[in-house]
C-alpha cells in the first residue's frame, strides 16, 4: 500500500478567535481553477455576520487601546507564521487562482512582505497624518488619527491572498477590527491566513472571516448599522453601488477604490480626533 488516504480539512469561519461552522450548518463546494473539487467551505449566514460584528465590536476598544508598538508586534507575528507556512499558502493560492507554483510563491511572498509593511505602520500613522495645530489662542491643539471602529471588508474575488492581506490589514493596523467576506470562489487562502492569526497573538475578534455567497452576505454587512465603514473594492461596480446605498443609512465610510496599498487605504477608515486644551498657569 503506497497511497495513503489524505485527511481532508474542513474550512470553517473565523469568528471571535474561534472557528465555528456556519450557524446555518450549510457549506458550499469550492473548486480549483480547473473545476476539481477542492473543499466544502462553511457557508456563512446572516447570523454569522451578526456574530462576527458583535465580536469585532467587542474587540475594537481593546485593540485600539493596545499600544501601537504592540499592534505592530502582533501583525509582525502573523508575518512570521505565514512565512513558516509559505509553501502551504502558495499551494492554496495556486489551486485557488490557477497560478503556476512559482507565481503563487511570489504572490505569497508579496503578501507576507505586505504584512510586514503594515506591522511597521502601526506606530507611524499618527506621526504621518496627525498634527499639532497652531490655533490663534492659548490652546494646545492636536489632531490624532483614531480608528473608525468596525470595518466590513468585501475581499477581492480574484486575488485570494495578496489583495485580502491589504484589505484587512490596512484597517486593522490603525486600530479597527474587521469582518471580512472572503472571495466567494477562492476562499481557502484567506481561511488559512485566518487560522494563522490564531497563533499570532491576534486578540479574538480583531479579524473575523466569513466565507459564503457574497451576493447574499454583502448586503447584510453593508446595511449592518453597527459597522462603521465598508471596503467595497472587492465587488463589481453595479453591486458596489447597491451596497454603497445601503451603507449610507448609517453614514458609513465607504472605500470604493482600494487599489494597492497606498496611504489612501490606511486613511480610508481613520477618523481625525482633535483635542483642544487650554494653556494657562
Amino acid at each position, binding site marked *: 500500500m503506497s497511497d495513503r488516504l489524505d485527511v481532508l480539512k474542513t474550512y470553517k469561519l473565523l469568528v471571535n478567535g474561534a472557528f465555528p461552522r456556519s450557524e446555518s450548518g450549510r457549506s458550499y463546494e469550492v473548486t480549483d481553477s480547473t473545476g476539481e473539487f477542492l473543499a466544502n467551505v462553511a457557508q456563512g449566514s446572516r447570523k454569522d455576520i451578526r456574530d462576527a460584528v458583535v465580536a469585532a465590536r467587542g474587540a475594537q*476598544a481593546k485593540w485600539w*487601546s493596545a499600544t501601537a508598538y504592540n499592534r505592530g508586534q502582533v501583525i509582525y507575528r502573523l508575518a512570521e507564521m505565514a512565512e513558516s507556512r509559505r509553501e502551504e499558502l502558495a499551494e492554496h493560492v495556486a489551486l485557488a487562482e490557477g497560478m503556476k507554483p512559482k507565481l503563487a510563491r511570489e504572490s505569497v511572498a508579496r503578501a507576507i512582505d505586505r504584512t510586514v509593511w503594515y506591522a511597521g505602520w502601526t506606530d507611524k500613522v499618527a506621526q*504621518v*497624518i496627525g*498634527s499639532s*495645530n*497652531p*490655533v*490663534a*489662542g492659548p*490652546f494646545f*491643539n492636536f*489632531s490624532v488619527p*483614531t480608528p*473608525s*471602529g468596525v470595518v466590513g471588508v468585501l475581499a477581492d474575488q480574484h486575488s485570494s491572498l495578496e489583495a485580502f492581506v491589504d484589505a484587512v490589514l490596512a484597517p486593522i493596523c490603525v486600530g479597527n477590527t474587521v469582518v471580512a467576506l472572503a472571495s466567494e470562489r477562492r476562499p481557502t487562502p484567506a481561511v488559512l491566513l485566518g487560522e494563522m492569526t490564531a497563533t499570532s497573538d491576534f486578540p479574538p475578534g480583531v479579524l473575523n472571516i466569513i466565507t459564503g455567497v457574497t451576493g447574499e452576505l454583502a448586503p447584510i454587512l453593508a446595511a449592518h448599522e453597527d459597522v*462603521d465603514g465598508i471596503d467595497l473594492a472587492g465587488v463589481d461596480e453595479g453591486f458596489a*453601488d*447597491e451596497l*454603497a*446605498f445601503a*451603507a*449610507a*443609512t*448609517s*453614514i458609513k*465610510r*465607504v472605500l*470604493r477604490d482600494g487599489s494597492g496599498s497606498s*496611504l*489612501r487605504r490606511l*486613511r480610508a477608515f481613520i*477618523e*481625525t*480626533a*482633535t*483635542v*483642544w*486644551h*487650554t494653556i494657562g498657569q
Partner: protein
Amino acid sequence: MSDLTSSPLGSLEYDPAPESIAVAQLRESYGLFIDGEFTDPAHHESFVTLNPATEQPLANVAQASSDDVDRAVAAARRTYEAVWKKTTGAERAKYLFRIARLIQERSRELAVVETLDNGKAIRESRDIDIPLAAAHFFYYAGWADKLDYAGFGPNPQPLGVAGQIIPWNFPLLMAAWKLAPALAAGNTCVLKPAETTPLSALILAEILQQAELPPGVVNIVTGDGSTGAALVDHPGVDKIAFTGSTDVGRLIQQRVASSHKHLTLELGGKGANIVFEDAPVDEMIEGIIDGIFFNQGHVCCAGSRLLVQESIADEVVRRLIRRVDQLRVGDPLDKNTDVGAINSAAQLDRIKELSGYGEVEGATRYTSSCALPDRGYWFAPTIFTDVSQSHRIAREEIFGPVLSVLTFRTPEEAVAKANNTSYGLACGVWSEKGSRTLWVAERLRAGVIWANTYNRFDPASPFGGVRESGFGREGGRHGLEAYLDV
C-alpha cells in the same frame, strides 16, 4: 442670600445699544451668481428671506431651478478646464488673500447682514463669524502653493467641480469653510446657501467680484432643498460637500452612492459636556452656557447634553440656573444681546416640539425668566434636569437653546454615557486633572474634544465628526484632503 444677582437697588440696566443697520445696504432682490455675474433664474422664480427677529422681509432672492444649477455647473466646469486648472497655486493664493482682506474690510456690513438674516447676536457675528470667515480664507490661501508639502504625495490634483451645500447657522463662515480649501486645492465651486440665510453669501459674491476672481470659479445658487438636490444629482459635479442634518446627509450619501462623486458630510450632533467634580467651576459654568446657548444652540457641535458628576450636580445646576437668568435674550442687533432669535418658524416649531417631550417624559424644566419680544421667533434658554439617557431630549438633536442635564459617577460611566449616541461630533471635558482629561479624551468617540473650553473654532484646527455626525474634516491640513484626489 438665595439670589445675589438681583437687588432691590436695581442693577445696571444696559440701555439698548443697537448696531446701525445703515451699513447694510441690501438690494431689493438678488439674482444667481453664475459665471461672475448676478443673473436672473431661468424660470424667474424667487423667494423672500426674512429677518427672524422681526418677521420683516429683507430681500427677494432667486430660486434656482435645475436648469440654473446646470448653468452654474457648466460655468464651473468651463472655468476649471480653461482657467483655474492653469492658474498657479501662487496666483490662487493671492486671490484667496484678497478675499480674506475684503471680508475684513467689509466686516461690519457682513456682520449686520448676517445678524439680520440669521437672527444671531451681533456680538457673535461681529466677533466670531466674520473674523473666522476671513481667517479661514487667509489660512487656506497659504496652502494653495504648498500642496506638495501637505503630506498627500507629490503634485496632488484637485477633484474638479465641487458642489457645496451649507446650513443656515453660520452662513458666511460655512461658505468660507467650503470655498477656501476647495479653491486653494484648485477646484471650482457651485455653492448653495441655506434657504433662510442666503444674503451674506451674496455679499460674498460681490466680494469675489471685487477680488477679480475669474468668473465661474465660484458660482452661488440660492434656493430651497430642490436646488440642493439638483446640485447633488448633477452628473457634472465631482465632489459634494454638505453641512446640515444627518437626515439630509443620509439622503445625499444615498443619492451619490452610484456615482463616482467624492463626498464629505458634516452632520448633526448631540455633544456631551462632561463635568468632573474638580472642574474649574466658574469657567466651567461659562463653558456650559457657551456650549449650549452660543448661537441660540443652532450649533451642530453644541454641548446639548451636560454630563455632570453626581457629587456636584446640585451645585452645578444651581449655578447654571443663576447664570441662565442673566442671559440677555432679544434684539440681535443690540450689542449686549447674548441670545438672539431662532432662525425660522419651522426651527422654532421643532424646538418647541422636542423640548415638549422633556416634560412629558418626566424631566424637570427650567426656563429663563427673560422677557421675549412680541414679534419674531424666540425661545427662552431652557435647562432640563432629571434627564435619563432614554429620554428623547437626551438623544435627539434639538438644535436650539435647550440643555439636558444628566449625571454620572465615574469617569468610565461618563465615557459610556457620552458615547451612547449614534452621533460623534464634539464633546467637552472639564477637569483640573490632566491625566484623566486625556484618558477621557482618548475614549470619546467624537471628532472634536474641548478640554476646559467649548465651542472654539480655528482655521488651523480640523473639524468634523465620526459615525452619524459625518465624515471628512474641515480646517487645517486635514481639510485639504476633502478637495484633493489623494
